Each structure stands twice: as structure tokens, then as C-alpha cells.
């Protein structure tokens, strides 16, 4: 498989990590930090997914020979 299956495991890892951080921070009374942790994790994963999506669109463009 030529494509990075590792990305899926990285996403799930960040998800679990952020979930635990959210739980811990919320239980220790720092709700605002919990929100910031969630947003940070979401941003990181979103950047990865958007890069993957860009590569995907480029590949579609080259396969269908568009533009």
C-alpha cells in the first residue's frame, strides 16, 4: 500500500490523547484549558486531513487529465 495508513493511527492517537486531556483538565477544574486542548488537537488533525485532501485532488486532476 503506497499511502500512509499511519495517518489513520496518528489521527486516532491524537483523538484518544485529546479525549484524556479533556477529561483530566475538566475534572481538575480547568475547563478553558480543556477547550483549548480540544481545539489544538482538532487543528492539528484538520491540517493533516486538508493536506491529504489537497494531494487527493491533485491526483484526481492528473488521473482524469483535467485542466
Amino acid at each position: 500500500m503506497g499511502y500512509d495508513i499511519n495517518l489513520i493511527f496518528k489521527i486516532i492517537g491524537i483523538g484518544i490523547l485529546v479525549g484524556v486531556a479533556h477529561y483530566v483538565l475538566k475534572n481538575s477544574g480547568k475547563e478553558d484549558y480543556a477547550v483549548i486542548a480540544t481545539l489544538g488537537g482538532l487543528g492539528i488533525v484538520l491540517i493533516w486531513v486538508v493536506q491529504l485532501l489537497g494531494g487527493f485532488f491533485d491526483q484526481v486532476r492528473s488521473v482524469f487529465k483535467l485542466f
Partner: protein
Amino acid sequence: MEIMQIVGLGIVAAVLAVTIRHNKPEMAMLLSIATGIILFMLVLGKIGSVIDVLRDLASRANLNMVYLGTILKIVAIAYIADFGAQICRDAGEGAVASKIEFAAKVLILVLAVPIMIAVLQSLLKLVP
């Protein structure tokens, strides 16, 4: 047997997404997007070889390549729009998904207009 890899990847990703959907639904959605893109990329090479065969056949039949290019563009728009609309629908945004499908229909209609004009012109040539 690529299908084994594809099914395995899909099942693993589905299990992971169900695991995390409980407390981080947005991560589950991003995971499903990444899985969909990776699966699509695995199959895209095969689509490319089929398209090369189609192109070869079209050039052998002395077809106008503009029409084949338009059809391929329409197929690509349909694939990508379907992909995006299904992701939006999975995330519970049915309205956005409907708009994506509407936009795809409009773009396909715009691309199909020259072919319709060509058909009408050849009809007019037939009718004296």
C-alpha cells in the same frame, strides 16, 4: 488481491471511529474523511488505467477528444461531489450535502451544454 487490503483498512478504521465517536465525534469524522481519501487513492490508479484504455479506443475511433474530455470531467465532478456530500451527510449536515450535490449538478449541466449544442446541430444538419 487489493480488495483484502481495502476491506481490512475499512474495518480497522470503522472500529477505531466507533471507539472514538463516543467522546470526540469530530475526530471520528476526520478519521472517516482520511479513510475515505486513502481508499479512493488506492483505487484511483485502476481508474486511471481504465481511462487510458478509453482514451485509446476514442482516438482509434477518430472521436473528437473534446467530447471525451468533457465526459471525463463530468465523471470526476460526480465522484468528488459524491465523496464530499457523503462526508457532510455522515457528519449530520444534510443541508450542506444537498447544496454540494446541487452545485455538482449545475457544473455538470454547464459542461454538458456544448455536447447538447453539437447534438442539436447535427440534428439540424439531418433535417433539410
